[in-house]
């Protein structure tokens, strides 16, 4: 049995345990009394907050139960926010305003420059950072850099999320045949460590208030090496252990859904594990993989498929890293997740259920400690749910999705811009998207006064039970196919996703899935609205090519030696990541990819 089979057993066993605790609470008087006492204590210790109108409210909402069996079902089956099995949240407090009034909101008049002061504010540790993390990347490094500064000008903490252009995502250089028009489109163009220096210029990479997220998987180890090399160039070698951020590096989902794989699966997984081994030891504040369902969802999966494949991919990575000898309690806390949030009803509880399954699986099948049990989640609203026709409706779609995402207690969130169906988002719509989050979290009282404000409705519970059952069924099927890697090579997940995507399109076409403004209440005009498009000018694309040529010329000799050394290490089967950090000093992304492909081969697409 693979680890995934053990996870299924663990969840079943845990559910049995909860039922037993319920029965015991009802039959064993002493145990029942203990639970009732604990419940009373939790309630009595819950602080009271006051709304702006003066209404007192508890800071933690709990169900109205006093029967020991039901108390047991709640405490063991769901857990309080921040308590195993974390159904209601990986942490306490989350979106709550600190008890002491915060001086400035994240969109207030003045930024409070003093991060340290806020850090001291008691149990509200997670309060430090706004959950807003906006994805951005366009044109050349300096253009994205400017956008980063614009986005973070009013934020206390600088959490950047980087999108790369097509050539970078596929590990090829801007001077490659036929990619000229793609330079800087849909993300930033990065060819060399020099681009990486420009990209985060002006940000203090070693600061506890800074974190960088990089959305790239196929060539992730090379890009990660460039980030480290760039940080060292700017701040010296001592900055490395202080670096904070996330790199996506999720190979499974690329093969299953997103198609940005450049090496064969096994080689990709080996390079990934090399990187994870390095960052786990040398960069304890870095998240070296973001296990992503987003692209699975965007490729057309059902919400259940998204959760099931993301979680099973996560367990497969954990199994792989453990097999390399990396201690689970070191890498476990450095795994993070990324889910899509759309409008289907499953999203009411998708992340909640995922958090619970992950916690039980990591604790009981992998033996992870408390920190390794946490399903740390970044959510993005669904890009696929946005459409070009009558595109301003996208604001409402995104708002509804945001609401669902925060009902699931996501740790951070990106809200899509309404203009995304036709272009890289423009500043006007990005601003509206960001403000949507601020309105929900800061302006409205929905999330800021009370934890659990919307948890536990009968409908939500029903969705939780149905989703958990369906996810475990998917696990069993993957297990039957020989585990995640075998199923991936067998195209199982890929076929399932494609099938679901096809059904979704058919439903839209037949009208059984209403899309307002498209197949229902259509006003007849289909014109793509007048929006200012963010296209990369040819001049800039040429500049990128010229810069690259200069870099290659300057380093020609050294590059050859560096690549030979890299190949040597790869062939010997050693961890090649340290050598990669050296290589990026003198080699471009495409040079490294090309040379590695000679050694390990190219990814053969699955059709």
């Amino acid at each position, binding site marked *: 049995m693979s680890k995934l089979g053990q996870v299924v057993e663990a969840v079943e066993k845990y559910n049995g345990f909860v039922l037993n605790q319920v029965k015991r609470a009802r039959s064993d008087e002493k145990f029942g009394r203990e639970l009732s006492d604990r419940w009373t204590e939790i309630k009595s210790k819950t602080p009271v907050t006051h709304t702006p109108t003066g209404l007192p409210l508890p800071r933690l909402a709990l169900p109205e139960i006093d029967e020991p069996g039901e108390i047991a079902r709640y405490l063991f089956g769901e857990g309080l926010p921040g308590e195993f099995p974390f159904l209601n949240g990986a942490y306490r407090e989350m979106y709550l305003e600190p008890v002491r009034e915060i001086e400035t909101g994240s969109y207030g008049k003045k930024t409070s420059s003093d991060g340290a002061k806020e850090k001291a504010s008691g149990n509200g540790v997670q309060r430090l950072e706004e959950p807003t993390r906006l994805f951005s990347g366009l044109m050349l490094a300096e253009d994205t850099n400017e956008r980063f500064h614009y986005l973070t000008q009013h934020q206390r903490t600088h959490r950047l999320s980087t999108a790369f252009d*097509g050539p970078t995502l596929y590990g090829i250089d801007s001077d490659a045949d036929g990619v000229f*028009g793609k330079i800087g489109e849909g993300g930033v163009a990065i060819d060399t460590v020099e681009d990486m220096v420009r990209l985060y210029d002006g940000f203090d990479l070693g600061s506890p208030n800074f974190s960088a997220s990089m959305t790239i998987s196929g060539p992730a180890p090379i890009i990660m090496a460039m980030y480290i090399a760039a940080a060292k160039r700017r701040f010296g070698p001592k900055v490395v252990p202080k670096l904070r951020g996330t790199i996506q590096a999720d190979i499974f989902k690329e093969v299953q859904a997103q198609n940005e794989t450049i090496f064969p699966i096994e080689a990709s997984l080996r390079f990934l594990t090399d990187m994870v081994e390095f960052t786990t030891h040398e960069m304890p504040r870095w998240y070296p993989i973001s296990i992503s369902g987003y692209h699975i969802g965007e490729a057309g999966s059902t919400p259940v498929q998204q959760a099931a494949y993301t979680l099973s991919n996560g367990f497969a990575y954990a199994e792989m890293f453990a097999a390399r000898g990396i201690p689970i309690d070191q890498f476990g806390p450095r795994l993070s997740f990324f889910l899509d949030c759309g409008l289907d009803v499953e999203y009411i509880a998708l992340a909640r259920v995922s958090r619970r399954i992950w916690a039980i699986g990591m604790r009981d099948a992998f033996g992870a400690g408390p920190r390794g049990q946490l399903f740390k989640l970044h959510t993005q609203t669904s890009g696929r749910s946005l459409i070009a026709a009558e595109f301003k409706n996208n604001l409402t779609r995104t708002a509804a999705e945001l609401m669902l995402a925060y009902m699931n207690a996501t740790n951070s969130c990106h809200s899509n811009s309404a203009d995304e*169906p036709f272009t890289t988002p423009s500043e006007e719509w990005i601003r509206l998207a960001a403000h949507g989050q601020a309105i929900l979290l800061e302006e409205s009282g929905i999330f800021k006064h009370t934890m659990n404000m919307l948890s536990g409705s009968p409908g939500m519970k029903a969705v939780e039970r149905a989703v958990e059952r369906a996810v475990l069924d998917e696990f069993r099927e993957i297990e039957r196919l020989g585990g995640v890697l075998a199923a991936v090579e067998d195209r199982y997940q890929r076929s399932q996703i494609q099938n679901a995507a096809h059904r979704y399109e058919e439903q839209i076409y037949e009208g059984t899935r209403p899309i307002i403004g498209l197949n229902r209440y259509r006003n007849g005009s289909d014109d*793509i609205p007048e929006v200012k498009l963010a296209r990369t000018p040819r001049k800039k694309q040429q500049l990128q090519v010229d810069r690259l040529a200069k870099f290659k010329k300057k380093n020609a000799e050294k590059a050859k030696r560096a690549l030979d050394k890299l190949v040597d290490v790869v062939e010997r089967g050693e961890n090649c990541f340290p050598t990669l950090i050296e290589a990026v000093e003198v080699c471009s992304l495409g040079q490294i990819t090309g040379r590695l492909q000679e050694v390990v081969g190219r990814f053969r697409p699955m059709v």
Partner: protein
Amino acid sequence: MAAPIRILTAVPICDGHDSAINTINLEFIRHGIEVIYLGYHRSVGDIVRAAIQEDVRAIGISSYNGGHVEFFAEVLSQLRKRGANYIKVFGGGGGTITHDDAVAMKRKGVDTIFFAGTSLMEMTDYVRKHYGKPRKRTAAKLSDMELARKLTEIEEAYAKGKRRPAKQIRNPQSAIRNSNVIGFTGPGGAGKTTLIDELVLRFLSHDPKGRIAILSHDPSVIGEGALLGDRATMINSQDDRVFMRSMATRGQAGGLSPATHDCLALLAQSNFDYVIIETVGTGQEAMPFQQNGIVGETVLVMNPDYGSRLQLQKIVMLDLADIVVVNKSDLQRARTAHTEIEQRLGQNRRGQRLIDTVAKRHRDPGVDQLFALIAGNLSRRVGMTADLSC
């Protein structure tokens, strides 16, 4: 009956958005169109080369990652440069291609751009209306183009139910020996396509000037078109030194098309160092290549999961193949398979070779061994003649 429309579809380089094109491909073939699908992340060079070799009427490009104005323009420009602007270009990209972009693209020669909300029916109707008839073309500028057009003439002649267009084949038994013809067959899913692509990689690096032709087959859906998707996974075979042609079986059972024989004969006379023919996935009783036919060397590619030992007795090709390959030999059952097939071949006493491969693995030693064997056998065979029965 008119021959089916053949078109090529692809997703541009640095773009992995294949969800739309997958749906559209299926719709096209449901309406009788033969689609050669090149896959995602494909360069302009790959697209233009494939379009010329496959002699398609049009190229459909599905682009979602930006840079479409330049990419489409480059495809058109390279088609023009090769004298192949009789091949038309159309495309789509949901909301990523604006109306202004589309105007600019059409000015550069793109036939049409489908916008978000276009129904599948509209697209199919467009293709049938605009590409339903062959276009007049100027004389072929390149030898690949000339060859591609002759293959089309053969295919179309058979589609119209005529006899073979004998003029295409310049008789000569003698000419055949210019090429070494290798036939690959075996059940579906055994990994024939991957194995051939890995051999191509070795052929190309072994002989820096050699040229290869591949005649690859996929089944037609009954009464409909066909999805010819081998190019999408044959990453090493998208090369100027490889001439590849994808054929649909067009209703013929047994793994090949009615036009295969003549097409293969033509390729065998066309000065390739190697000609590789791949059948569709075949059943136990199939014997697609006749002995002493054009095909010089036959390779049967097996999957270790063939069922019980008794099944082996029923596989006709086990008696006929020169080489039997057990691919996916990393699977648990592979050792049993090797032993059982070895015994089965032993009964034939023909000196048939048995090789285990893991074609999906880069630099697989089994594939190396197969390559060495094929290259060695074939160099011995040069000089033999064969009659023209396939």
